[in-house]
């Protein structure tokens, strides 16, 4: 299993999250779980035509109160 310790410390510091020792243990476990999920997601070969399902909808004048 990959060691995410350095990434967790750097990302937490960058975001201004101060992790206690107790929290860090849980965070390490759950980050590893997310990484395993990300591996499955990254494992699907997609083309540049496979775009996100999130489609931005422009807002016309008068349609947003």
């Amino acid at each position, binding site marked *: 299993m990959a060691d995410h310790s350095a990434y967790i410390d750097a990302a937490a510091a960058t975001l201004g999250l101060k992790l206690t020792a107790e929290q860090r243990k849980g*965070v390490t476990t759950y980050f590893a779980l*997310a990484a395993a*999920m990300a591996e499955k*997601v990254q494992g699907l070969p*997609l083309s540049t035509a496979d775009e*996100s399902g999130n489609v931005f909808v422009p807002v016309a004048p008068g349609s947003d*109160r």
Partner: protein
Amino acid sequence: MSANPDISAGAIADAVRSGRGSARDAVRASLDRIAATEPRINAFTEVLAERALRRADLVDAHPRRARMKLAGVPFAVKNLFDVAGLTTLAGSRIERSRPPAARDAALIRRLEAEGAVLVGALNMDEYAYGFTTENTHYGPTRNPHDLARVSGGSSGGSAAAVAAGQVPLTLGSDTNGSIRVPASLCGTFGLKPTFGRLPRTGSYPFVATLDHLGPFARCVADLALAYDAMQGADRDDPACAQRAVEAVSAQLDHGTAGLRVGVLGGWFRGMALTDATAAVDAVAQALGTTRLVEWPEVERARAAAFIVTCGEGAALHLDDLRQRAADFDPMTRDRFLANALIPAAWLVQAQRVRHWFARRVARVFETVDVLVAPATPCVAPPIGTEWLDVGGQRLPARASMGLLTQPVSCIGLPVVTVPLWGLSASAPHMPIGVQLIAAPWREDLCLRVAARLEAQGICSAPVARGL
């Protein structure tokens, strides 16, 4: 009005419309039932007796009373819905310090416009991030059919209140399974409509691109009644589709003749215990189908929903994670902290996988109308259960309750969950739910099949006895 806790929303509304009963008596009966059972269930975080009785009197005196579709029907909502004058907790301690909501959520307003009466707010997992409603701040909501077991979540209070006969109708939210899981574990009917069908205006978000709202009830007709009253566009929710109301109540008795029904295989059988597969088999037999259908890459779709949940869910709470992480529920805190750290590339790829999956599943629905799948891998586990053995793996029990719902909500399909009974060898007194899944915007098909199964006696949602 009858104090019978089994009474349906439709029966209450009929009585109040005709003058055989009053909204005040219906609400009073609901409040009495809540008072009598709540110490054992813990479904409510707030009971609004004064507001409800005042509102009931308005319904009784209303000039449109005889035409109100939900006249005098008591209902309650997950405490992530705004209720005017109440602080919207979303299951958290942190939100307690926010000001009260100025206005009711859109769906509360729509139900009350048809004469329904809000009686309270319901317990949930903190910020909707969980499948068990073992909330540390407000205590666990207990399963009315076995008080030692979880109610499911995150809309656990919504399912338990209906199963306990406290109210005939509740609202919950479903991001990854939070209507379908508690409906399955508490033995109620539940509807998660198509993503974008019902407006979320005035509700506390969890994952904006995955959040759905929907009803729980003890019969299909009540689900449809509430659903019809809540439909309609709302431009205050950018995800709400600009679609006209497509009422379904009058179609429930159209039957299933001509509908192409299949059973989802692969992941949906592999990650279910025999409790769940037996329920699916019973439904398939009742519907006369042996057709097995597989979706491609379901495990990756579930992972995509997981990652989107991580990224969007944590970003929403970043300020509080920075400033007061200790105030989060220990059940969610470390997950939110970990999720805040995930790289953007994971989130973007997850959204792309989600769209890829939606397109493949749409092709499957060109040859089938309704698909049947288990709602949960097993019946409700005991409160405090940590691990579940399923699919040849030992998995965290709480997260695993959503294994079979996440791939479906990931692509926004409409689902009705129907409860079956007596299929678990180890817990024959417990219910388990089956998902009836259709193509986007075809809630009518899910509800028609559910109504057919209900009429056949295959599924039912009785009030828990002995409370």
